[in-house]
């Protein structure tokens, strides 16, 4: 795909995402891993920090800031689904099943794994490191 086109550039960044935000090493317990099954999510209001959504996508844990960069909506209250990849004319190519979240206020799409907005070159939501420590899903901030 050529990055000359805006949407191609957006999806290129899905493939090579930025590093997650991890500054202090502060660890926040989310819940026992047994309570966050594939397809589930938890929203964690970090004391003195941001609200963060933690997702289990196919057995892997991912976390994004619960704030839409557009108008500040609680992004992680949106629906999770697939999307269609940039395609040739009048073709539908489903992709990214279970990892695309649609903001509850305006419906703008974000990839939960990379945090990339799927509609322009630069929009993104912060992502965070998630680990399982002693059977507990844990955010590392």
């Amino acid at each position, binding site marked *: 795909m050529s990055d000359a*086109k*805006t*949407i*191609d550039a957006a999806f290129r960044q899905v493939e090579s995402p930025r590093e997650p935000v991890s500054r202090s090493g502060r660890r926040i317990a989310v819940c026992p891993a047994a309570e966050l099954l594939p397809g589930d999510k938890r929203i964690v209001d970090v004391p003195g920090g941001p609200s963060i959504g933690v997702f289990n996508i196919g057995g892997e844990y991912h976390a994004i800031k619960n704030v839409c960069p557009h108008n500040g909506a609680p992004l992680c209250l949106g629906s999770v689904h697939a*999307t*269609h*990849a*940039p*395609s*040739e*004319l*009048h*073709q*539908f*190519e489903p992709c990214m099943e279970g990892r695309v979240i*649609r*903001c509850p206020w*305006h*419906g*703008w*799409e974000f990839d939960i794994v990379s945090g990339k*907005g*799927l*509609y*322009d070159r630069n929009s993104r939501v912060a992502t965070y490191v998630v680990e399982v420590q002693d059977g507990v899903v844990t955010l590392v901030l």
Partner: protein
Amino acid sequence: MASGTIPIIDCDIHPSDSPALPLLPHIPKAYHEAIRSGMAANRGAGYSNPFGVIRRDADCTDPRQTARDHLDRYNITYGVLQPPGLKVSLTNNIDVGNALATAWNDWQIAHWLPADERYLGSICVNMNDPAAAARELRRAAGAHPRMKQLNIPGESTDLYGHRRYFPVYEACAEAGLPICLHPGAEGSLASSTPVGRPSSYFEWHTGLSLTFMAQLISLVAEGVFERFPTLKLILCEGGVSWLSHLMWRMDKNFKALRSTTPWLRRLPSEYIVDHVRVTTQPMEEPETDAQFLNMLGMIHAEKTLCFATDFPHWDFDAPSAVLPKKVPEDLKRRILFDNAAELYGLKAPVMAEAAAS
């Protein structure tokens, strides 16, 4: 002249046939009986200006007289002709519509283009027969180098983004000719507004922008500019400032609904600024010059806005009056000449000619 030494391209001049220059000799004899028997009928829009459409002080039936009265008078370097044939797609009978399209093209080539090198012709086709329309586009484009665009009406049986029209756009892209969408027959197939039929010409004419918006949304969303990356579209006489609204609204919706048209690889506004032009006439006249300048900024006028007069129609805009003095000179030149020159592949005149005229 407010425009000083800036050359001018008028994107909208409306020649008519006349007893001196009739259309009939350009229609193959095989269709004369059909036309005599009423088979050239179309439903018409049903809205006519109660005060007439042609200016009382002007006429556009004689190419040499129009060159003197209009091109010379306003120092117009090129004038794009848009004949009544731009509406042949609304002819009830498909074959007669095809014959009329060819006739209008040959009529321009026979009478108007040879009369003055400043005239540029518009290719009329019957969009209701896309295969024939593509053939006629190629024929007419090859018949004269100054046939410079495809001319289609605002009304159509399907929105212009529909893929049934793609063969016509493919022919345009091959020939390197833009599409010009001009009002025509809105209200002949369905209501000219999505809500219901207007009750006056005033309502009908003001609402023509609605059709343009619908057609542009369709052309962008269906991927016409993705499929034909060199294709350009000029929206003539359909309004100006709504373009900013449409770009912003379409972008915002696209951010949520992109996955329903995944073949769009750019933001709608990006396709529009690169592929779409609008003409000035009838120029919207905001309350202040500051608002006017804001409007130009919001629509990227330095790329998108082209000058037009609509000569000799009732809502004519003179080049000397249409742009406020506060419009910067370089932007004025983009609007009056450069944008259309780039669209049609035209050269600027040498200044000696302008000085001599």
